[in-house]
């Protein structure tokens, strides 16, 4: 029997079969690779936390080193108060601050902020997650504060889809290191740190941006300032 390929019925049948076949292949692939992807994301998060502390780790030893350095973790509210008795998905490590940042139903004042306490070379450090917007999508990272609650000792930034070679450079150590030594407070009040274009980044409270990545650099500036302000509320109450 010769099939009329121009008939509507054939076109519909072909499209339906194609969509079902493709749908089954892609969804089983996605489910099958799900656990691997999830594990990759978790290890990456641990590596980022460690990287803010200045600890080098690989995908292999990331989990192990995380357990070694991070001593305690807890969650504070937007107004800077310690939150207790939170459900499992809102505990410090499992709390998805990026999802919370995107979720328009969560008011800014209802956002939760995790704190990771770490001990490195006998010193106590605080690792604080930050989330913000870059040029193409979300950017996020971790900022490590020293025991004086105001000096930044390390940062690690990451992004979803900033332009490779331009905005994406925020995740490179040369940019992350520019934040080291900056202070988020002086004399007990919060002070913002600006990302500048004119090369005056060596002055205090200033960090050089990235050539060709201006909007991403400004995104980092906003992200760090907005989040550090919240954390400083907590620290100034609990020094």
């Amino acid at each position, binding site marked *: 029997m010769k099939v009329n*390929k*121009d008939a509507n019925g*054939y*076109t519909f049948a*072909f*499209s339906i079969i*194609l*969509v079902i076949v*493709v749908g089954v*292949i*892609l969804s089983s*692939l*996605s489910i099958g*690779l799900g656990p*691997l*992807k999830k594990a*990759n994301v978790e290890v*990456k998060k641990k590596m980022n936390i460690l990287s803010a502390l200045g600890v080098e780790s690989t*995908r292999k030893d990331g989990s192990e080193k995380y357990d070694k350095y991070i001593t305690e973790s807890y969650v504070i509210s937007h107004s800077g108060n310690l939150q207790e008795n939170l459900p499992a998905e809102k505990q410090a490590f499992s709390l998805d601050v990026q999802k919370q940042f995107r979720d328009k139903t969560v008011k800014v004042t209802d956002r939760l902020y995790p704190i990771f306490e770490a001990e490195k070379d006998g010193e106590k450090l605080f690792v604080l997650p930050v989330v913000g917007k870059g040029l*193409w*999508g979300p950017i996020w990272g971790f900022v490590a504060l020293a025991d004086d609650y105001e000096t930044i000792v390390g940062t690690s930034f*990451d*992004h*979803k*889809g*900033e*332009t*490779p*070679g*331009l905005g*994406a450079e925020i995740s490179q150590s*040369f940019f992350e290191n520019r934040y080291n030594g900056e202070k988020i407070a002086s004399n007990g009040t919060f002070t913002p740190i600006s990302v500048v274009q004119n090369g005056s980044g060596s002055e205090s409270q200033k960090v050089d941006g990235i*050539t*060709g990545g201006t909007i991403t650099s400004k995104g980092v500036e906003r992200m760090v300032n907005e989040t550090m302000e919240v954390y400083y509320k907590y620290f100034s109450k609990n020094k």
Partner: protein
Amino acid sequence: MSNTEEKVKAPSEPLFSKKNKRLITDPLSDNNPITIQVLGICSALAITVQVEQAFWMSISVIFVMVFGNLIVSLLRNLIPSRVRIIVQLVIVASLVIIVNESLQAFVPDVSEKLSVFVGLIITNCIIMGRFEAFAMANKAWPSILDAVGNAIGYAWILLLVALVREVLGSGKIWGASIFGNNLPGEESGLYALGYVNNNMMILPPMALIVVGIIIWVQRSMNKELVEEN
């Protein structure tokens, strides 16, 4: 089907006959998808800041092209002509998702480096162009060869542009510094002598200028390619 008739017409064509070889070699130079057909320019512009990304992009495109051309060629007699572009789009999109998922699961570091550009393979006009112009009208084996040829033709231009831009723009090859250290205050190598990286090279327009220079060189070497006007 009339198998016997076909055999009489083409008595078992060798796998790498002259005609088949041309399918691979033509797109490398005289019919290069980027420099002659001027397709796929968007990714040539976006992904060529660093050689490593260009490399992984090329690998991904080769995969999508070869399997896409193969699938379209196998289905060519079944695809209803009125929805053929949509069908081709579904095939290329599915392959790209497969590439993206696999990268995320098995080589997460590469996936992070390529970020959004894997998704943009879907919009690479070379791929849709080959589906429509070649795979829809040819058998599986020539289609694979055509895909390999075009994908490699795309890849080598991409890598060349990336090499030029990374060397001149960042002073690196594959992320490794070649001119010495250029951190302020601790310059070494060429930087100590006053050399500075050309920051303009990492901006997108320079990719087009580099492609333009390649086109110029190619056409002055082969006058047949020059349009008479």
